[in-house]
Each structure stands twice: as C-alpha cells, then as structure tokens.
C-alpha cells in the first residue's frame, strides 16, 4: 500500500511564486495546497492538519508573523518563512516567534526542496530518537553528555558543550544569536554576540574538518546557527 503523500500548506499571495511552489512540490511527491490569505490558511490549518507550512510574510489580510504566533500556541508543525535576503531583523523576529527556517527570495527549486526535507526530517527524527545525534562520524549523546568524532571522544570546554547541547535539542532548527546567548551565557548577555562568535569559531575548529566549510554547524548569517539534521 502506498503511503499517503505529505501535505504541505503554502500561504502566498503572489500568483507566480505560488504556481512555482505548487509545481515543484508536486513534482517532488508532496501534496501541496495553496492558500492566498491568512483567513483561508487559518481555516484550512485546523481542518487539514498539514505536515509543513511555507509562509509568506506580507499577505493581503495581515502579517504572516501573527500566523506563526497563532500556530505555536497549539502546534509544533514546521514553518518555513519566505523572506527577502536583506531583512535580517524580520528573519530574527520570525525565529523568535517560532519559525523553523526561511527561504530567501529569490530561491531555486533545489534550495526549496532541501529546506522542506530538513524541516520534515526534524519532526520525524525527534519522535524517533531524542538524545543521540549522529552525522558523518559526529556523535552527540545529550543524555550521557558525551561528544565524539570518528569514534574519538572530544575534549570540549563546558561552554562548547553547552552550545552544542543547545543546538542538538532541535537539529535543523535555526537558533538565533539571542536564543543561544540566553541559553548558554544567560539573559544579561543577549547583546554580546562576539562571545558567541569566538566560542563558535573554537568549537568548529574542534569538530569541523574545514571550519570555513562547516559540515555540522551551519551559519545563518546575521541570524544564528543550526545543527545539520541527520
């Protein structure tokens, strides 16, 4: 028996982008449904329970960010935000509200499908094995507080451990600078992004083969970091 195709809700008012999203997602085997405003999206979300939402922020009947807030009250469904590359503030605001990822306009089909896959994987993976992260030889066991690379235990500083364990809580999800600083250093350090950058540089030097081409900890420039999903 064939499994039911994954439902993806697209909330986008631009006809051309909508068409492109529908066509690409259908071709990739998903079942997309297209809502052109927030009102329709809200009604459909309750009845159709999509596995993922692709959300544009500027919609004819309101701000997409309000939708994120509404959904997060009762659902953990992955949300990918569509946004312009320049507006970092906007992206940070979305992540703070609970968005999982974003797609910078303009984007190609490969980028779209990759992000969709990552977001869907995160939900399935989390439900399967909560505390072991294992990608390309990097194993993070958050229950036993150990990190190893290619079978060798890594010596990390307490701050580096804390950083890694925060990211591993939701692999694939973007953590903003402020979220990480609050979690690892404390609320009074939210503006000291330089601490985070220097320690992240050191952590990468320990776990990445080429820190400038990170395999595990991905930089979201101006926004934060995410751990590559397994």
């Amino acid at each position, binding site marked *: 028996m064939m499994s039911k195709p994954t439902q993806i809700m697209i909330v986008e008012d631009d006809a051309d982008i909508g068409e492109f999203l529908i066509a690409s997602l259908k071709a990739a085997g998903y079942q997309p449904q297209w809502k052109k405003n927030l009102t329709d999206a809200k009604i459909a979300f309750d009845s159709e329970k999509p596995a993922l939402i692709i959300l544009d922020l500027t919609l004819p009947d309101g701000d997409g960010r309000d939708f994120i807030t509404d959904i997060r009250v009762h659902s953990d469904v992955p949300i990918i935000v569509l946004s312009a590359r320049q507006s970092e503030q906007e992206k940070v605001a979305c992540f703070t509200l609970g968005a999982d990822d974003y797609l910078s306009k303009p984007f*190609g089909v490969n980028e779209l499908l990759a992000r969709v896959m990552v977001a869907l994987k995160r939900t399935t993976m989390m439900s399967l094995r909560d505390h072991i992260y294992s990608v390309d030889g990097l194993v993070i066991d958050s229950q036993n507080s150990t990190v190893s690379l290619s079978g060798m235990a890594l010596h990390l500083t307490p701050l580096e451990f804390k950083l890694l364990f925060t990211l591993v809580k939701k692999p694939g999800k973007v953590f903003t600078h402020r979220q990480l600083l609050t979690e690892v250093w404390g609320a009074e350090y939210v503006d000291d992004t*330089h601490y985070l*950058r*220097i320690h992240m540089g050191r952590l*990468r030097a320990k776990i990445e083969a080429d*820190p*400038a*081409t990170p395999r595990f900890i991905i*930089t979201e*420039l101006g926004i934060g970091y995410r751990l590559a999903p397994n």
Partner: protein
Amino acid sequence: MPKPFIKSILALTTFAVATAVSYRFFDTIDITGITMLYLLVVVFNAYFLGFFFSLATAISAFIAINFLFIAPQYTLHIASPHSWVALISFMMVSVVISSLLKRLQAETNKALNAKRRVQFSKELIEHIATSTNINELLNTSSRLIQQFFNKPTAIAQIQSDLSYLITHHHQLTAQPDKEALEWVAETGKVIGPHTDNWPDSHCWIIPFDRLPSKAPVMVIGDIDASSPDELLGDLKGHADQIYAVYQRLIHLEQSRQAELIAQEESIQNALLASISHDMRTPLTAILGAATSLSTQGKLLSTEEHQRLLGSIASEARHLSTSTENILALVQLESAQSMHIALDWQSPEEIIGTLLARYRERDNTKAIATDIKTFSLIKANATLLSQALANLMDNALVAHQGKEPIMVCVKESNQTISVSVKDRGTGFSREFSANDIKKFSQRDKNSKGFGLGLAIVQAIAHKHKARLTIENREGGGSKVALIFPAESLMQASD
C-alpha cells in the same frame, strides 16, 4: 575687613612711625631731615593707599611738624618766616606728588587692564580656533567670556521654526525676551544699556552678524547703566572673533556635505551607467527565451528547450546579483556612515556562508580558504558579505587554471585583511583602487564587473577599511580589504 579700614590703619602706622623716629632723633637730624622723612611717608601713602590718604598724611604731617619740631615747640605758633616757607613748601610738594602719583596710578591701571583684555582676546582666539564643531565653539566661547568678565553668558540660536533656543548658558538664569531676540536677528543691532535700543534692559544681546541674519546671538546678563561702556565694545569685538570661526566651521561643514554628495553622486552615476548593462541584458535574454518557449515551444528540439531554460535560470541569477548590488547601494546611500549597524563579525562565518552559496550554484571552479584566526572584525555582515560576493564574482569571471581561487584572512601589525586571489589576466598595469570609477565600464562584455568594484569600494569606505588591488606574481590579481586596528577584536588563545 573693609579695605578703607586697613588703609587707615596703614596710614596711621606710617605716620606714627615717622613721628616717633623724628621725635627720638630730633637732636641729630634737623628740620630738613624731618620734612624729608614725612615727605617719604606722603609719597609712600600716595603710591600704595591713594590720593585721599596721602593728602590726610600731608595735613597731619604739616600739623605735627609745626607742633612738635618748629620753635616754639608744643604750640601751633610759628615764630620764624623761614619756617613758614618750609612748611608751605612741604605742603605743596606733598599735594603735587600725591596728585601726580594718582594720575600715574590711573594710567597704570588702564594699561594693565588693556593688557589683560588683549591677553583674553588672544586666549579666546587660541581656544576657539581649534574648535572642530559649532557646538564646541559656542560652548567654549560662552564659558570663557563668563569666566573673564564674570557676567552670566549664553548663546541663543535660531531654530528652523524661527524660535530661539538658549544654549551654552553659563550662569544665565533669566530668559531674555523673545521679542528682543527677534529684533536683534532682524536688525543685526545690539540691545541693552549704552545703546539706543532697549537701554533699560538688564542684559546685552549682541548679534554675531552685524547684518540681519539667522546667526546666533550672545546674551550677557547682569548689566545696567553703570556697566562700563568699554565692556560693550570688548564684547562686540569678541562676538566678531567668534563669528569668524563660526563662519569657517559653517563653510567647512558645507564643503564636507558637498564632498559627500559628490561621492554619492559618483556612485549613483556608476549605478545608472551600469543598470542598462547589468539589468537590461539579462532581462532581454530572459524575455527572449521565455517568449520563444511559449510561442514556438512545439517547433523547438529538446536540446533547444533545455538550452533556453538554462539561459533563463542563469540570466535570472545574474539579475538577482545585480538587484542585490543595487539594494546594497541603496542601503549604503540611505544610511549615513554612522547609522550602518556594525557588530563584531567572524570573517570565517561570513566567508563560509558566502562560499556555500557559490558551491551550491556552480562547483566547477575550485574555491579554497586560508583563515587562521578566530579574531573578529567590526562590520556589517550583509555589506561585508556583499563586498566579498562582488570580489568572488570578478574572480570567477577572470579565473583560469586548476589552482583554486583563494579567500584569505590575515592578521598583521594590528590590522586584519580579507582578500580574494585569482589566477586570471589580472588588472592592467596602470589600474589602481583610485581608478575604480574611471575604469568601471572598461569591459562592456564582462557581467557586472564595473558596479561590483565601485560597491566594494563604497563598502570599504563605510567600514574605514582600505581597498587594495594588485597583480600577483605568476598571473592573476589579489584584491584585499584591510581593516584598521579599531575594527579588530583579537581572540586571545
């Protein structure tokens, strides 16, 4: 203790000492010596205590000599006409010397005062000449004038809504009349005592500009009809001095603005010049390919289909790059250098994110990095990333051979540099960073070349970084952004 009291004591003491000495040695010094001694006391008192005390001393001495030393002693009677002459001469010499000294003293005081005023004038010029902004100038002037003349001082500046803002006040508590301030600005004339305008008011309002103008005015408080006329003259002179510096600063600011506008205009010109090339060309290609596919689709072979679709994608990508450049430019122009948000950024992260984008797009050309530092750079992540993207675009167009394009971060001598090195044809020998605008359109066939470097330069400028361009030994070029020490945060190991 009051001054006249001390002066009286001093006068009495000197008189008493002279009398006691004369009385004690009356046997050895004759009447001439005694008169000389008293004369000395009169001169001393004239010089140090003033005309009144010296006159009083002279009269007392006249009586004392008569009573104590001239025969018959202990009476005021004078027997010999010779003594009369001596006494009267003494009295006259005393009075003449006293009044001469009085005049001398007045002249000396005047000279000293003039010297002090000249010195202040010099000091004021020295202090304000080094002012770098108008605020500093007005504040320093107001403070120095208050300190020297010991009068409450303030500056009133006219606002855009034509109201007055009293600034830089030093001890001035009472607000000057708004109507009076307006009148001064409209006429360029002084208000207050010793003038024909509002002579009863308790302050002087002195305009910097003697003609009707919106220049600031100086307000000096605690003034009445008894305030010396020459004080007003001095203050007017100082107002002129301050105004000269004020005008210089205004001109400086205007030329700075003009330079800024000229710089922005040159970027804008580069932008406009390249828009036709950078944006119309890809648009033409996209429109052509798309219309061809939609109208003649059935007549085209599969290969032709693929080729046209590929060209739409690549031209759109190019258009996207151009749009990003234009957005970067708009951001650079709309935000003054102060307002661009700078934060400590990791060069490794910026380069890493950028290269990920390039590798995703095209992995046929190898790109390698050489970053051996955790140090951070004070930068705007979007702009720095944009600058590096433009350098990468240029390098990718020019690069040939198997050796990878190198992106390097290096720290040396308290500076940090980010550079992109390729193995292409390099820049022509006479090309330098100063010629970016001139050469920006040199190669009409290469995509986005001109605008790219002009933007890199503008971004470098906003970061106080230096852009250097050089050809490498063995072919190719190296373009580097060198950030100053204050933009470098070294990560201690």
